[in-house]
């Protein structure tokens, strides 16, 4: 039972390279197995192969043996083998044949031939397990990204799978939902299920994973205990990341075995701490409004996609030039809608929005571009040029830049995001996470004054995530204004100054980013914890500052 592969190799159509090669694995039930690796390492392909979806749906060749609970998964739909597969873009897995979320969740059991009563009982249990009971009567197409991810997880859970294959299952989830899914996976493993998760977030996986398999160029590079592997240099050499605290330890010159949690890191440097590691005093000071109106202003704005269902109510916000502001809140709080309103993709029912000095009523998004730029939540299907370079050249071209300037800026942006080697490829030939980077590069290449970003680091590997954080921080340093939705605590801490918390369509808090983090909305980044312990002020508490302090501190790092 469980999963067995012998000499598994897989090649996509028209590709010379094997996406997977010589994979020999025995994955036993009752464990959470974590797959990690750099972008393009083959983790997603391995999940597709184990689910029998590659090469059956993708095309290409497969060699070697795959057995899932003693059956070759290639011979039938995943559910027929008790396999639940969650892809990296859950929205594409919505069936399109259900009127309500309850109907969508009950679909799997119905397709398995269960009785109506049993199917509905399991569907209701799954809705409760994912805390989406309140969405039961909503239409699936009206959910936010995070709500859709929870709905599809509930739909898979309702079929009582024996094997979970999950590709980035936490990418759009808020903290509460993340903890809920962590518990669900742990409980499933404890109940004897086989749980295999491809995930780039080491902080989320470390507490729940029993085994870590790191892939590199389609082969197994490392296989062992997550805590042992993450603390060692080998994982970095394999191109995968470590935890936030582990990353800070690497930057600080701390050798292996490295501490993997903030608690362990503090214990390692405790002899030199001037302050107790105490950060339970949230700074809820409201930023003082500036004398001039900023590039983005919401004045008593209300909005609903239908008049009788408000999504945002009486929002008043003033975002000043050069500010980096984060939008936070539970899945479905109205964050993406607020961003769409700022870009004139929607218009308020009441109140006014002023973007870059222009009231958005009567404006179209193209009237605000390229000075305002918008990154969609799932931009990987919103690319339209024939090459990555052409995609990135479009906005500067429309802005009237000359050819040399366009070439220089595009080359620089591609380089910043690590996309230079893919410049001539078609965007649709790239894997999903790289397409997301292309979408970001396409809006950054015109150097906009206002960046509206919806989850810019979601589902990116560690290296790409660090690149994106560095690039956005650089834009803020140059005086650009950023309004970003994120569930990524490192992005929030490293880039943002101010946090706006939305709760059921209303502004619940508007204060410093530390207040949002301390208010338990997200995990505390290691850099913040160590900075507080070292007594560093805001402004010198970013990862690089803290690492530099630890490196240069008297006595060096133990």
């Amino acid at each position, binding site marked *: 039972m469980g999963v067995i592969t012998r000499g598994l190799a897989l090649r996509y159509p028209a590709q010379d390279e094997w996406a997977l090669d010589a994979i020999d694995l025995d994955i036993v039930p009752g464990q959470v197995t974590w797959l990690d690796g750099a972008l393009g390492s083959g983790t997603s392909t391995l999940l597709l192969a184990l689910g029998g979806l590659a090469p059956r749906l993708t095309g290409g060749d497969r060699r070697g043996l795959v057995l899932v609970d003693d059956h070759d998964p290639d011979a039938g739909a995943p559910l027929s083998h008790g396999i639940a597969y969650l892809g990296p873009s859950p929205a594409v*897995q919505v069936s399109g044949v259900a009127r309500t979320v309850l109907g969508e969740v009950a679909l799997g059991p119905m397709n398995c031939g269960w009785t109506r009563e049993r199917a509905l009982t399991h569907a209701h249990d799954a809705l409760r397990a994912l805390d989406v009971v309140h969405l039961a009567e909503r239409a699936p197409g009206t959910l936010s990204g995070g709500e859709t991810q929870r709905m599809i997880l509930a739909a898979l859970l309702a079929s009582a799978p024996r094997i979970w294959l999950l590709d980035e299952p936490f990418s759009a989830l808020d903290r509460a939902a993340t903890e809920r899914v962590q518990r669900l996976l742990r409980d499933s493993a404890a109940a004897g299920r086989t749980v295999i998760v491809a995930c780039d977030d080491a902080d989320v996986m470390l507490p729940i994973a029993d085994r870590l398999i790191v892939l590199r160029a389609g082969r197994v590079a490392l296989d062992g205990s997550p805590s042992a592997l993450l603390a060692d240099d080998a994982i970095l050499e394999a191109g995968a990341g470590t935890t936030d605290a582990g990353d800070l330890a690497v930057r600080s010159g701390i050798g292996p075995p490295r501490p993997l949690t903030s608690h362990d890191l503090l214990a390692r440097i405790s002899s030199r701490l001037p302050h107790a590691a105490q950060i339970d005093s949230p700074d809820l000071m409201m930023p003082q409004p500036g004398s001039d109106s900023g590039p983005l202003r919401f004045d008593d704005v209300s909005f609903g996609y239908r008049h009788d269902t408000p999504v945002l109510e009486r929002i008043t916000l003033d975002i000043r030039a050069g500010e980096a502001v984060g939008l936070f809140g539970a899945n479905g709080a109205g964050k993406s809608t607020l961003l769409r309103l700022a870009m004139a993709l929607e218009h308020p029912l009441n109140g006014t929005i002023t973007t870059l000095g222009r009231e958005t009523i009567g404006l179209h998004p*193209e009237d605000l571009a390229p000075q305002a730029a918008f990154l969609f939540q799932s931009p990987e299907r919103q690319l339209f040029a024939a090459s990555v370079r052409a995609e990135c050249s479009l906005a500067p071209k429309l802005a009237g830049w000359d050819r040399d300037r366009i070439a220089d800026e595009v080359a620089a942006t591609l380089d910043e995001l690590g996309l230079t080697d893919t410049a001539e490829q078609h965007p649709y030939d790239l894997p999903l996470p790289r397409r997301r980077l292309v979408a970001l590069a396409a809006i950054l290449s015109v150097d906009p004054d206002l960046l509206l970003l919806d989850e810019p680091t979601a589902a990116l590997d560690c290296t790409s995530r660090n690149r994106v954080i560095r690039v956005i921080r650089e834009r803020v340093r140059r005086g650009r204004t950023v309004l970003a939705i994120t569930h990524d605590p490192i992005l929030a801490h490293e880039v943002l100054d101010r946090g706006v918390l939305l709760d059921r369509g209303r502004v619940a808090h508007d204060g410093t980013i530390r207040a949002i983090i301390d208010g338990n909305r997200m995990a505390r980044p290691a850099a913040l914890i160590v900075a507080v312990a070292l007594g560093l002020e805001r402004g010198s508490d970013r990862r690089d500052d803290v690492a530099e302090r630890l490196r240069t501190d008297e006595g060096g790092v133990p």
Partner: protein
Amino acid sequence: MISLAGRAHPFTLATVAGSCIMLALLLPDAGSVGALCVMIAIIAITTGAGRGVRNGLTVVLPIWMLLFILQAILGDAPRMPAPWGGSLSVAGTHWMFAQGTRLTAIAIASLSFAAVFDPHAFLQAAIARRWPFDVALLVVATLDAADRLAVQARQLREAQRTRGVHIAGSIMVRIRAVPALVFPLLLASLTEAGDRSLALETRGLLLQGHRNPIDPPHDSTADRVVRWCIAIIVAGTAIWRSTR
């Protein structure tokens, strides 16, 4: 408030739409088909499917223009005087009205049906009637394809607009924007087809075997009476036409 079309059994809606299309093909002349068009439009508007009438008329408008140019203006002799001067082909004009009204009836009947089509209710009704599930799924997927394409087109247009591509405004601006949308849309549709197969596979929609309906729509006496009456009307028309 749920419209009458929203309350009707999905098979009733399909029967009404299918029968209107059959009648459009069976009725002999432009006058009777024109009357059928009016009747379909009234039924659609009063039962909550008015959007389909608007969409149908939008679709057939360019076809009418084409028929007018090719048949009425460029058609063969004999010719008759046109009200604005010049002349029109007699046979071509008759042919234009005969075929144009048929196409109009078919377009507004099918698009009105598509406007109120509920894939969930249809699938549940098909399962309750023990239809082969893959046949029902094929019907649903076919009718749903246009909606999916529309969503894809909207997302692409939004992405283009946020990058500064002008697609609204004068006719010329709109025409210039079409190629920029069409090719990416075709490519995105191919990707979408791959996504659909992933969804069908992973959600168990392609599993063989018996299914039990979760919430089959209520098939009322009124629904059954409407279906039988319409079937009799279509059968009667077919017999009448075959004997003339």
